[in-house]
């Protein structure tokens, strides 16, 4: 399904499914949010104790299992890893800090735009700026180096782990935390959420939809393929929100959002820059992790650790706005990205090209 129609269709399905999930109980403009849902799952496991954001989100499990099964069926499941794993962990961590400053991953930013949340415009401006900064490093030879083939088991463990999470969700043992109020308490019925996740996982695996890739490829290669999906989500989420009466065009009083433009901008700039360095947005990282990319598994774990820190140390913003700790964390995040981006520039990249014959040979 490597066609413009395919990616527009995928965007349409995601936009509409996200609204349907809100109709069935998910928080408004949070039908699907990779950062929020990883954070909720992290909380359900007790790794942070913010009582309002704890729930094992079946959408995430569905996305992973859907992408895993379709990649097996299409013979694209390929177990690899070893491309700067700890740097990827830190990048995942930093992307989560940025996302929780804005209150949403790039996908939720798009869904918020589709719900009339004008604060997301600041997020989008920041996101695009972060991507541009990332592109400057890419053009100057930034690389996280090659991956290597690994054992099959290594790749199967992540989908298996998620199947295990689903069992914990169904059996709800006492050691798992479920919010009784707040965003974590708002959720669609388990099987509907799982089914939505499976559909999204399959479609995104086939089309390679990626929020950061859309803007990046449009700027870097003048390639509009991925950005069509990005736009399609906004259009169809808007239509869905209008249809169900969730659409609300304003800055103030938006669901799970704050109106501090500067920090909405900076939070998403951090997430955008970090995602470009990782090669894909949080949604794309989930899909890659499901396809056997162990570096992306590490990235997802980094995001989970970032979420735990964000709530244990009051870094995450809330509807009241950013926290002082969160502002410091975002600034530290920028410093970390600068160090990582700078020290991974391959200085001989240009010289090799000018030599003319072989590039990238080992």
């Amino acid at each position, binding site marked *: 399904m*490597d066609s413009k129609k395919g990616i527009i269709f995928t965007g349409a399905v995601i936009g509409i499914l996200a609204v349907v999930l809100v109709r069935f109980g998910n928080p408004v403009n949070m039908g699907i949010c990779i950062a929020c849902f990883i954070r909720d799952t992290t909380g359900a496991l007790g790794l942070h104790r913010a009582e309002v954001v704890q729930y094992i989100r079946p959408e995430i499990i569905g996305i992973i299992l859907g992408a895993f099964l379709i990649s097996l069926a299409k013979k694209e499941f390929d177990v690899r890893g070893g491309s700067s794993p700890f740097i990827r962990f830190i990048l995942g961590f930093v992307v989560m800090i940025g996302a929780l400053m804005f209150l949403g991953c790039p996908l939720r930013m798009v869904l918020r735009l589709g719900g009339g949340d004008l604060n997301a415009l600041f997020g989008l401006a920041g996101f695009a700026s972060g991507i541009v900064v990332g592109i400057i490093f890419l053009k100057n030879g930034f*690389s996280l180096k*090659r991956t290597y083939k690994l054992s099959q088991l290594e790749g199967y463990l992540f989908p298996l782990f998620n199947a295990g999470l689903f069992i914990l969700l169904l059996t709800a043992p006492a050691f798992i935390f479920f919010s009784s109020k707040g965003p974590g308490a708002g959720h669609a019925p388990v099987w509907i959420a799982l089914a939505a996740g499976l559909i999204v996982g399959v479609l995104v695996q086939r089309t390679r939809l990626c929020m950061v890739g859309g803007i990046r*490829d449009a700027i870097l*290669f003048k390639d509009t393929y991925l950005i069509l999906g990005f736009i399609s989500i906004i259009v169809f989420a808007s239509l869905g929100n209008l249809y169900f009466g969730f659409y609300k065009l304003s800055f103030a009083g938006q669901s799970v959002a704050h109106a501090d433009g500067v920090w909405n901008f900076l939070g998403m700039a951090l997430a955008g820059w970090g995602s470009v360095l990782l090669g894909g947005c949080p949604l794309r990282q989930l899909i890659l992790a499901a396809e056997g990319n162990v570096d992306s598994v590490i990235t997802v774990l980094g995001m989970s650790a970032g979420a735990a820190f964000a709530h244990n140390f009051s870094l995450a913003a809330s509807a009241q706005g950013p926290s002082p700790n969160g502002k410091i964390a975002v600034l530290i995040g920028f410093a970390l990205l600068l160090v990582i981006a700078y020290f991974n520039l391959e200085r001989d990249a240009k010289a090799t*090209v000018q030599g003319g014959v072989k590039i990238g*040979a080992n």
Partner: protein
Amino acid sequence: MAQIDTRGMSCPQPVLMTKKALEVNSTEVTVLVDSKTAKSNVERYLNLTGYTINTVELDGETNTFEISAKKK
């Protein structure tokens, strides 16, 4: 002719490496990729920039392709 080996590189590097190689020699290039995502990304880029493409799957390696491109 420039030959590039993008195996093991993650998105968007295969395309970026192709682009850089074409800046040096814009008439033809051969790109080795080892995932279907990289294959379609590189092919799409070469199509957009006006190249005729011939892709062959290499035996014995899963999802490994050699993409040969010539300026139209």
